[in-house]
C-alpha cells in the first residue's frame, strides 16, 4: 500500500503536475492560433515569436518595477507587469495587421500567402526580440517559489517520495482557468463575441447583417496577443525565457490546435493537454515507478524511457501525423468558434 502511494506521488510529481501546467500553457497558445485561424483563416506561424515578444515586454516591465522597488508580495512581479506587456504586444500585432495582413485580406489572397507573410513576420519579431533582449536565457521569477516543498511533503506524510508544487504551476492553472472562462463568456454572451462567431461561421452573411469586419479582426488580434503573452509569461515563469525555445513551441501549439480540430476553442484546450501529456509521459523514465509497483524480483533494469527528452518535439509531430492520417478534422469537428 505504501509502495502504491509512493508510486502515485512520484507519478504526480514528475508527470501529472508538470503535465497539467504545461498543458495549460500550450492550450492558451493553441487557443490564440485557433481563434486567428477561424477569423482570419490562416495558420499564424508568428505565434511562437509573438509569445516571445509578449514575454519580453513583460520581463522589461518587471525589471522596471523591480528597479522601482515595487513587488507583488509572494506572487511574481511579472503578474503586475502583465497588463502593460499585453498592451505593448497588442499594439505590435495591430501594427503588423495594418501593414502586413490587411493588404492580403483586401486583395483576397490565397491563405498560403498569409501564412507566408506570417513567416516573414515571425523572423521580424524573432530579430526584434533578439535585438532588444538578446538570445540568452532570462529568469524573471521572483516571489515565493514553492507552495509545497518536496521535503515538507515527505515530513508531513512520512512517504519516501516528495510532491513539490511550484507556485508557477499553481499560478498557471489558476490564470488559465480564469482566462479561458472569461474568453468563453466573451464569445458566448457579449455582442462582440457573438459577432466574432458569426463572422467565423459565414463571412458574407455577417457582413450583410452589419458586422464590421475590421472591428472583428481587431478584437481577435487583441485577444490573441493577450493569450500569447499570458501563455508565454506562464511558460517563462515555470521554466525560463529563451527566444529559441519559444520559436520551438510553435510545433506543439500547432499540433494542439489541429488535434482538437482547427477553429474549435474547446478542441484547442483539449489538444493542449493531449500534446502536453503525451510529451511528458513518453519522455519520462519509468524505472523508479515500476520499482515501486512491481514485486522486488521483477524490478526493471533499464530506464524504461520510451523516448529521450531530446525528441520531445517528435512527440507533437507524431501526434500531428497520426491525426492527419486518421482524422484530419481533429477530435472535435468544426470550424466555427
Amino acid at each position, binding site marked *: 500500500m505504501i509502495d502504491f502511494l509512493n508510486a502515485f506521488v512520484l507519478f504526480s510529481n514528475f508527470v501529472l503536475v508538470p503535465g497539467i501546467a504545461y498543458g495549460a500553457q500550450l492550450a492558451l497558445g493553441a487557443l490564440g492560433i485557433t481563434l486567428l485561424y477561424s477569423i482570419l483563416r490562416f495558420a499564424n506561424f508568428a505565434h511562437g515569436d509573438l509569445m516571445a515578444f509578449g514575454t519580453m515586454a513583460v520581463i522589461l516591465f518587471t525589471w522596471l518595477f523591480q528597479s522601482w522597488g515595487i513587488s507583488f508580495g509572494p506572487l511574481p512581479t511579472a503578474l503586475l507587469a502583465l497588463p502593460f506587456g499585453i498592451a505593448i504586444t497588442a499594439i505590435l500585432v495591430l501594427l503588423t495587421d495594418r501593414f502586413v495582413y490587411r493588404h492580403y485580406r483586401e486583395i483576397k489572397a*490565397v491563405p498560403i500567402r498569409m501564412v507566408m507573410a506570417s*513567416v516573414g513576420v515571425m*523572423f521580424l519579431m524573432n530579430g526584434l526580440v533578439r535585438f532588444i533582449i538578446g538570445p540568452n536565457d532570462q529568469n524573471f521569477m521572483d516571489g515565493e517559489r514553492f507552495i509545497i516543498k518536496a521535503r515538507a511533503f515527505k515530513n508531513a506524510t512520512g512517504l519516501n517520495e516528495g510532491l513539490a508544487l511550484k507556485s508557477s504551476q499553481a499560478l498557471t492553472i489558476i490564470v488559465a482557468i480564469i482566462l479561458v472562462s472569461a474568453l468563453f463568456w466573451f464569445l458566448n454572451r457579449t455582442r462582440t463575441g457573438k459577432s466574432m462567431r458569426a463572422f467565423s461561421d459565414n463571412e458574407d452573411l455577417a457582413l450583410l447583417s452589419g458586422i464590421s469586419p475590421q472591428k472583428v479582426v481587431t478584437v481577435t488580434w487583441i485577444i490573441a496577443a493577450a493569450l500569447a503573452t499570458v501563455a508565454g509569461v506562464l511558460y517563462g515563469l515555470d521554466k525560463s525565457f529563451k527566444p529559441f525555445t519559444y520559436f520551438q513551441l510553435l510545433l506543439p501549439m500547432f499540433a494542439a490546435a489541429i488535434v482538437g480540430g482547427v477553429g474549435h476553442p474547446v478542441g484547442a484546450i483539449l489538444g493542449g493537454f493531449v500534446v502536453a501529456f503525451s510529451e511528458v509521459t513518453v519522455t519520462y523514465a519509468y524505472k523508479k515507478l515500476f520499482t515501486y509497483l512491481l514485486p522486488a524480483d521483477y524490478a526493471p533494469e533499464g530506464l524504461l524511457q520510451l523516448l529521450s527528452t531530446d525528441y520531445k518535439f517528435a512527440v507533437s509531430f507524431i501526434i500531428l501525423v497520426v491525426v492527419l492520417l486518421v482524422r484530419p478534422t481533429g477530435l472535435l469537428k468544426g470550424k466555427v468558434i
Partner: protein
Amino acid sequence: MSNALRAMTGFGIIGILLIGVGMFQSWNVALAIFNLCLISGVMALGVNIQWGYAGLFNVGIMGFAAVGGVAAMLTSQPIIYSAWQAGGTGILVSLVMVLILAAAMIFLSRKMRAGWAKNIVMVALAVGGYITIRNVFDPAVLAIESDNPAKSGYLGGLGLPILFSWLIGGVFAAGVAWIIGKIALGLRSDYLAIATLGISEILIAMMKNEDWLTRGVKNVTGLERPVPYELSLQESPRFISWVEWFNSSSLSGLSDDARAERLRQLVVEGSSIFVKLCYSGLFLSVLLIVLALCVLALASPWGRMVRAIRDNEISAAAMGKNVTRRHLQIFVLGSAVVGIAGAMLTTLDGQFTPSTYQPLRYTFLIWVMVIVGGSGNNLGSVLGAFIIWFVWIEAEPAGNWLMENGTAWLGDDSGLRAHLVDSAQHMRLMILGLVMLLVMRYSPGGILPERTRQN
C-alpha cells in the same frame, strides 16, 4: 525593362561586385562568396520548383539540406568494420523489423473495418512493436557507440567517391519528401507548411542525437574531397611552374632571393584559389544542368499543367488532372534538388556538423532569395540567390561598422552603445524579414517576374 535586360543587369552587377571584392579584399573571399552563391542558387531552384511552379509552401528546407549533408557524409566516409561487427547486425535486424511493422500496420489499416477493434489492434501493434524493436536496437547502438568512441563510434559510410553523394543526397531528400507529402498533401494547404516545419526540426534533432549514424554533436570532420588538397598542390612542381608562368611578368626583374620568396607566397595563395576554382567549376555545372532542366520542364506541357493547377486547382481538377498526385511529384522533385544542394554544401565544408543547421540560414534565407529573385522564374531565383547571399555576407561587417560609428556619439562607456553593438548581428534577421515582407507586398513578382504568355 524586359526580363532579359534585367537579368543581364542583375548578374552583371553581381559580377562587378564580386570582382570588386576580389580586387579590394581578396580573390579567396570573392571565390568563397561565389561558391556559396552557386550552391544557394541550386537550393533556390529547388524551392522555386515547389513554390513557383505549384504554390507549395515548404518551411523545412533546412531539414532537406541536412539530409543531403548526411548523405554526403555517409557516402564518402570509409566503412568502419569493427563497428559493423559490434552492432551492425542489430541495426539491420531492427531496420527490417521497422519495415515489417510498418507493412503490417498499413496492411491491417486497409483490411480492418473502422471501429474500436481496429484502433486497439493498431495501438497495441505500434506499442508492442516499438518496445520489441528498442530491445534489439538499443544494445546494438550501445555496442557501436562504445567502439573507439574518441575517433569513430559510428558505423562509418560506404567509402564511395563524394561526388556520387550529390545524387544520393537528392534521393534521400526525395524519400523524406515523399513520406511527408503523402501525409500532408491533399489536406488543407497550411498543413504541409506545419508538417515540413516539424520534420526539419526532428531531422536535425536526430542528427544531433543518433551518434551511431552521424556521430552527433561530435561531428564528422575531414570528409573526402573531389578536388586536390592545397598542400599537395604546393608541393607539385607542375603547379609551381604554372604559377611561375602565370605571374612571369610580376616575377621578372626581382633578385633571386626575393623572387623565390615571392614565388612561394604566390604558390600558397594560388593553391587555395585553384581549389576554390575547381569547386566553382563543379558547382557551376550542377547549377547549369539543374537550371536547364527546370527551364525545359517549365516550358513543356507538364510545366503548363502544373501552372494551371497552381492558378486554379478546381478547374485543373475538372480537366482531369490529378492535383494531389502532381503536388506530390513537384514536392519530391523540389526537395531532391534541395538535397543535392545540401550535399554540395557539406562537400564544400569538408565536414558534417549538425549543430550548424539553423532555420534562419537554411530555410528563411533561401525563401528570401526566391521571393526577391522572382518566384516562378527559374533564372530569377538564381539571381535572387546571388544577390541575397552577397548581401548576407557583406551585411555583417557593414552592419557592425554602421553600429560602431552610428552610436559613437553615445560615448564609449555607454551601456546602450555596448548593447547595440553586441546586437548588431540580430539586425540582419530583422532587415531580411522586412525585405521579404516589402517585396511580397509591393513587388510580388520579384526582380525577374514570371513571364506569362497571353494569347
